[in-house]
């Protein structure tokens, strides 16, 4: 009876340990997040599409078979925000201008939610740089947590997912397509 309960306890302990190890591994090497670099990253064109990933002590932005890296320890501030962008692309948006009675404006009502990730970091000379990324809803917070876990600093409180808008304005979060 004692042997049987010991075996059950051991099995439970092993299963728990396996779960903990797998979850820890998943935190260390998260999946790359598809992102658009709006501006700021050195050597990367504006609106470049790529993937963001935190690995080691580096933030990698992989785009067009090239990788731009920022040392996590050089990051002074990480801020996430919520935003929206037009649901239709530029081509359809342009074509819709020709629609009769300006009915193409109807398409502007459809927008999709996105996240923004804003970084402030310093280079080797101490010069301050900034970079802005957009990504699918929910992606920015995971990257931010990874960055903070690896030593990046943040001034925004963890609970505040969105940047507060000025009190005189409605919380319009549309900032850039």
């Amino acid at each position, binding site marked *: 009876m004692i042997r049987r309960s010991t075996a059950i306890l051991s099995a439970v302990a092993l299963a728990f340990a396996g779960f903990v190890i797998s979850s820890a591994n998943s935190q260390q090497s998260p999946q790359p997040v598809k992102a658009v670099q*709006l*501006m*700021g990253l050195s050597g990367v064109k504006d609106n470049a599409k790529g993937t963001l990933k935190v690995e080691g002590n580096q933030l990698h932005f992989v785009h067009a078979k090239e990788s731009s890296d920022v040392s996590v320890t050089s990051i002074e*501030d990480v*801020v996430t*925000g919520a935003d*929206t962008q*037009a649901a239709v692309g530029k081509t359809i948006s342009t074509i819709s201008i020709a629609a009769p009675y300006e009915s193409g*404006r109807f398409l*502007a*009502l459809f*927008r999709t939610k996105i996240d*923004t990730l*804003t*970084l*402030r970091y*310093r280079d080797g*000379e*101490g*010069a*301050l*740089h*900034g*970079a*802005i990324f957009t990504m699918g809803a929910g992606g920015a917070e995971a990257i931010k947590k990874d960055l903070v876990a690896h030593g990046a600093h943040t001034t*925004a409180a963890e609970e505040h997912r969105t*940047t*507060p*808008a*000025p*009190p*005189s*304005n*409605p919380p*319009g979060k*549309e*900032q*850039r*397509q």
Partner: protein
Amino acid sequence: MNHLQKVIFWLSVSTLVFTAPPLSAEDNRPAKIKAAAIQVEMIQSDEIQLPAEFQIALYENLIRQLEKQGGFEHVYRDGDRRAASASDLVILHSTVHGFKAGSERTRKVTTVAGATSITIHCQFTSPDGQSLLNRDVSGKVRFFGGNLRATYDFAKKAAHVAHENFAPPDRRS
């Protein structure tokens, strides 16, 4: 022949009358302040709550536009240690005084409403803190484009102000 001479005379006189005022105005234009390099401090927004992406977009666009059309030999970023040894350096301090977050959706649907605007006080100082030039510069996006386009508009205007008022020490134009 006499008639032709009269015509030429009056044409010359009228040409002088019309061209003289702009020439004199150009002479009265204040001399540009000598500056070879500029250091751009991070945009401050203590009184106005400005979204982080706006703050960074203002800063990055400002540096780009100053490099492009500011007329300076060097443009240094906030905290750049190389600026300490730069000669004829001016420092640009920018403080947000007004911000109205518009709506791209409203702009697209109505055309006339939903404008985004931002007003920033730009102070150019010497490295020892002496004020050289103060200007309020605004950035707007009224019809087309995302809200962050207002930061580009501001940066272009601020770089133009710098170009109009500063020149490298060896030239005066």
